[in-house]
């Protein structure tokens, strides 16, 4: 009997010992995150994939551009007048009528990209950078991935804070609400909103670290469009913009200067710009584009008729048209006037910046995020506000005007504001420029019953955080913006 008991116990022990392996069945066609992030190749593919959702219609594929353009004098819903362009889309955005139950879809999309970036950053941190180094993988290869992910994390938080917080003001930054800054994506966490000051600090910290670790010549291998990947100049251009938004004039001017003097980008000429030709190429070579979202019909995100192309084209939905408030700004010979054009019937005005690449029936357009003229404009604005360097506002504004067939604006804040309104229209700038420079939104050429002005300080400068978040995040410091109820 004893013998049998011993055999039985031994057998049970053997079985229990191997149970962990026996009870582990990993999927084959999708990969577990642990496995994905355990190799350099997995990290690399996960970094490449993390860009992907930025092209979603919830972000640069449509909403981020259109929500902000339609809330200003740049946009007009011609559908109210011409039935063909009335699909009911972008009605609330045009009326700047957001509620916690119907708000910008950026929230989930941006935090999704943040989680994808965090997974890579946290894996490198947890496993140690050395664990990925091999004969074919250098430390710099891994640092480049870190730089990309740090950039994506900072970039996503920047769009979040621009959308869901009131405009930055150095006077109130220490107490005003920013957004939750997520460095470890955790399903159990109920994170608080950071202060505005901290949100900007973390964004800048991430960007500076990215700048310091990236190989200055790094361009992601295999990318079809090299302007849609993170490079040293992309990081620096982004730093220039973030410093501008947080009114750190000297740094803003210096970083814009670094990008301009890198010599990697050249100003578009009137010939490039005529009828938006330079906006509608599949893969840009030369020219102004520093960073853009690559878009094509074969992408996982951003395809379909609700893309920015479908919303701004008379050939598709066409709900999002252009107001004469914008076209009236252009002088007679300003080539930028050719970027806006009426439909074939001569009725409604549309932008040509997203008119498609002419590659297919259901077309798509790249969405430009950072380009050279913005750098000149940042440098000029910085100089006007006291930044010192080997540059001048007058000359920078002249560079813009000379390449557009326009008269140069005076080297004043108003001059910069006016030039930005013309140069960067329909690229998701005007709404935020009004906000950060403390000007009201005003518009005259409207259709239907929508507000013609949003005064400075109005609660609508910040969009509401989605209501569902408050049902699952009970942190005392996770609060809704003023003006949107509880």
């Amino acid at each position, binding site marked *: 009997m004893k013998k049998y008991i011993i055999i039985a116990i031994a057998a049970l022990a053997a079985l229990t010992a191997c149970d962990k392996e026996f*009870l582990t*069945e990993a*999927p084959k066609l999708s990969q577990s995150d642990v496995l994905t992030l355990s190799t350099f190749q997995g990290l690399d593919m996960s970094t490449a*994939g993390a860009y992907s959702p930025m092209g979603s219609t919830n972000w640069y594929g449509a909403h981020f551009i259109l929500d902000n353009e339609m809330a200003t004098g740049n946009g007009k819903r011609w559908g109210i007048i011409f039935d063909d362009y009335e699909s009911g889309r972008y009605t609330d955005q045009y009326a700047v009528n957001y509620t916690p139950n119907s708000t910008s879809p950026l929230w989930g999309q941006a935090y999704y990209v943040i989680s*994808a970036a*965090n997974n890579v950053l946290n894996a490198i941190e947890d496993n140690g950078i050395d664990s990925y180094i091999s004969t074919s993988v250098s430390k710099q290869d891994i640092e480049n991935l870190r730089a990309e992910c740090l950039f994506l994390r900072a970039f996503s938080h920047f769009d979040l804070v621009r959308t869901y917080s009131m405009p930055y003001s150095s006077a109130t930054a220490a107490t005003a609400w920013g957004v939750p800054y997520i460095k470890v*994506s955790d*399903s159990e966490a109920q994170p608080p909103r950071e202060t505005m000051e901290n949100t900007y600090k973390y964004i800048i910290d991430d960007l500076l670290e990215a700048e310091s670790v990236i190989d200055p010549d790094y361009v*992601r291998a295999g990318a079809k469009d090299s302007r849609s990947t993170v490079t040293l100049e992309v990081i620096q251009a982004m730093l220039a913009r973030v410093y501008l938004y947080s009114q750190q004039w000297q740094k803003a001017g210096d970083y814009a200067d670094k990008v301009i003097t890198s010599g990697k980008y050249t100003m578009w000429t009137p010939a490039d710009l005529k009828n938006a030709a330079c906006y509608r190429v599949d893969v840009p070579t030369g020219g102004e584009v520093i960073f853009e979202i690559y878009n094509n019909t074969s992408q996982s995100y951003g395809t379909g008729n609700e893309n920015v192309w479908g919303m701004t084209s008379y050939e598709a939905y066409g709900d999002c048209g252009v107001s004469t408030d914008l076209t009236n700004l252009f002088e007679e010979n300003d080539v930028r006037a050719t970027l806006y054009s009426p439909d074939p019937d001569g009725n409604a005005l549309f932008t040509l910046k997203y008119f498609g690449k002419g590659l297919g029936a259901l077309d798509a357009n790249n969405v430009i995020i950072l380009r050279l003229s913005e750098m000149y404009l940042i440098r000029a604005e910085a100089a006007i506000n006291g930044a010192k360097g080997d540059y001048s506002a007058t000359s920078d504004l002249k560079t813009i005007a000379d390449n557009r067939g326009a008269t140069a604006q005076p080297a004043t804040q108003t001059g910069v504001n006016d030039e930005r309104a013309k140069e960067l229209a329909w690229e998701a700038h005007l709404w935020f420029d009004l906000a950060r420079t403390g000007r009201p939104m005003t518009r005259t050429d409207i259709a239907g019953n929508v507000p013609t002005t949003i005064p400075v300080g109005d609660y609508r400068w910040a969009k509401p955080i989605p209501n569902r*978040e408050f049902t699952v995040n009970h942190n005392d410091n996770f609060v809704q913006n003023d003006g949107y109820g509880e």
Partner: protein
Amino acid sequence: MRKIKSFFAVVALLLAGTAAFAQNVQVNGIIKDANGEAVAGAAIQLKGSTTTYAMTDALGGYKISVPSNGTLVVSCLGYKTAEIAVGGRQVINVTLETDSTVLEETIVVAYGTVKREAVTGSVSSVKGETIAATPVTSVDKALAGKLAGVSISATSGQPGAITQIRIRGNGSINASNAPLWVIDGIPVLTGDVSFISNQNSALTGLNPNDIENITVLKDAAAAAAYGSRAANGVILVTTKSGKEGKSQFNVRAKFGVNWLQPDSGFRMMTASEFLNWSRDAISNAGIDPDNPASGSYYRPLSLLNGKLYNPLHEFTRLGTTQEYEVSANGGNNKAKYFSSFSYQKDQGVFYGVEFQKLQGRINASYKLLSNLETGVRFNLAYTEQSDVPMQSLYSASPIWAGQTILPWMPLQDEEGNYVGNSAVNSGENPRATAENDEKWDHTFHLNGTVNLKWTPFKNLDIETRNSMESFFVNSRTWYTPTAHDNVYANQLDTYDRQIHQLTTSNTITYTNTFGGYHNLRALVGQEAMRYNSSSTEAYSPEVDPNMPYHNTADQTTTEISQAFSAETMLSFFAIADYNYDNRYFFQANFRRDGSSLFGADNKWGNFWSVSASWNISNEDFLRNSRNINLLKLRASYGVNGNNGISPYQAYGLYGTTIYNGITGYLPSQLENRVLSWERNLTANFGLDFGFFNNRLNGSIDVYNRRTNDLLLTKQIPQTSGFSTIFSNVGSMVNGGVELQLEYNIIQNSNMLWSVGGNVAYNKTQIIDLGGDEYIGTDVRQVVGMGRYTYYLYDYYGVNPYNGEALWVASIDEKTGEKTLTNDYNKARRYYAGSPEPKFIGGFNTTFQWKGFSLAAFFEFKAGHQVLIWNENHYLQNDGQSVARNQFASALNYWKQPGDTGCNPRPVAGNTSNSNDWTIDRWLENASYLRVKDITLSYNLPQTLTRKVGIANCRFYVSGLNLYCFNDVNFWDPEQGVTGITAGQYPMTKSVVGGVEITF
């Protein structure tokens, strides 16, 4: 069962025996029962001897050599033992009296068998004969209405279709609600293994005639031994074993026909009815149906003058079923075997639907040593299932197209061939599909178990069972240009799929009786299971019709996709049974299961149960009662688990994404390291009784089954990157009462008349959904309600003044007054009904006289609704479209002011939404009573058959589903567990006749 017992009786004798002694007379004779039927397998023993014995053969005959002054003891389980003095006679015929007290059989329970009186949990069992007596083709269908609390729902009348089995209601939302099937001690694969065909139940490989018995374990105590997968109950199937004795053969043949026939008066409009209806609808829209300029609204009366078709008639036929089977069993004291081989061919009522099956089984055992026995149970089935598109509203579906195609549309070309025609039915012709297309699954299903049982010393058994189950499915669809005058022509899709499940189950059992009163059984065991499936699909959108195979020369258009999944489980368990003097019974179970499906930190779960029963009838004060033969109280409580979810849901996953010319990875699912089992906590109280010399038998059970840790998608902050995570939150409860009764009204040697039945009441209530008030949109899970609740717009009826559809906009809470509106968008929405029956059950009666037997079996469900929204939306559409034929019930429409209780005034092309899907207008009371089976059979007198060496010869004719009492304006009230179907193969009615011969 009886024969098994006699086998054990003989084994007992054998073990005790040494050698026979001489100077004897040769005695022979026949042993019969009170009905004059031969008793096979009875033991004839010389009194006082443990070595001189004989057994009756299949015809009840025996031969034995005994001293002429000896006494024969004739015994057989189920009969009273008889003693007869030999008295020098050479022929002794004996009639055995039925022993109702020992008719209490043993029944199969988890990892063993026990006497029925020792059962402490809630179980129901069916004998193999009962299953075999119903001439159905799949065992799950034979169970309908036979077991209290076991609901069997069919969604399709197709041969090979699956059934949805619910034991004591639905206990889960995202995990499985189906019970675990255990065949000969090994959990098997169930459900739908079809790829191309509409449905192919994994259980069709099991021949109902191979089954010895089925036990359904309903409460925690009964099922706990199967722990992690027992939450929805367990169905234990035991297949037949060989019997010691002369080889016996059984031959069966049957043939039947089946047809479509709704019993609620449901039908489609005739050609003239439809024409008049559509002309009214068109006129009501202000258009002249007699004006050729009206385009598709041009509907002159002359349409009736051309060739008219009845499309349903063109697409259907009289279905046939035929089945042939031979089985054999026999053995000696070392080896025993049972084997069967069968062939079945069903032709469905729809052209193109065919099901063929070849099936063979061998169950064999061999005693290697006096204390070591091995056995093999092997079943092999090959099915060929040809099919046509169904289960959707696709125009190639014969049931859908048969209901919709207009009668004047040509289905044939000039030569009379059925062809697809782009002008008719979107270019699809279901009859041409049936004749030309290919759409089939060929399935090999192997299931084999080898066991080894060692009894190292008395009272201790060590047994190992090792099993492999495999499916190989080879499938193909090929759409011919003849049948499809559209883009689907020349599409080819082929699949190869494999499923394998390996199981090992090892137990050590100790049984003993101490001091004559203390009976103990203790068991420990271990199990391990590995499941994996893989499939490859190749799809070509357009192949050469002359060579309809994937183009191997140019593969640019061939799309290949693959799928894999795998699952493992490891278990340890223990069972202890104790009873004192067969009066006080106790049982405890414990099981620990690990499953690969759950989170890394929470793979293991512990399950247990305790139960007790008191057999009052074995107490002294009742032991000799004539009227109270059985009275037993039972109580049990325990915890079972449910891991019926698809694999990999606990993993954090990455999927692929394409961006900027690079295929990258993106997180696609959040990890949940603590994802774990749903837990079912079941309490059960029961009473078993037998009165009046066991002529009235029955049991009552009351239960409460609470599911905790429901597997649900829980909402989380989107700052995590995701908005939901699959986790254990929420709970629901099922409570109910079950009653089972049998009564022998007449019971004598020539005649038996018995009635029986069961009824069960169950209520499901969701307690908590992890903070959400409800889940779902139209069919919801709502806190405080059942598993399924329809959330529908409140249709009021027709406005008697103008024939418009009216809706209830709101109801005043105080006065109950309804505010009506003719605007669909202002209609209120409310919780309108549920497809979960409150009552389910069945009843039967059997009348036997001499060799004749007439049995009738009825099944019912009550207190639930079905929602026929798919067909009604199109086929009772109030004129919205006049391009499809309509239900005949649509003829009852508003014609003049004052008309009420009818459909709205039909207006061609209207946009009133009166025919929308999600409206309570399509909700119907689904209660039904079905005449499931009426069988008349005749056993030839054995006096006659014995002369030609035949032990038994039975003829029968059965009517299946002959009539169903119901009010649902559709083919059949059974619409599956959700009460919603689309284009399903309706239930058919059938008549089957057959013959069975045993020799």
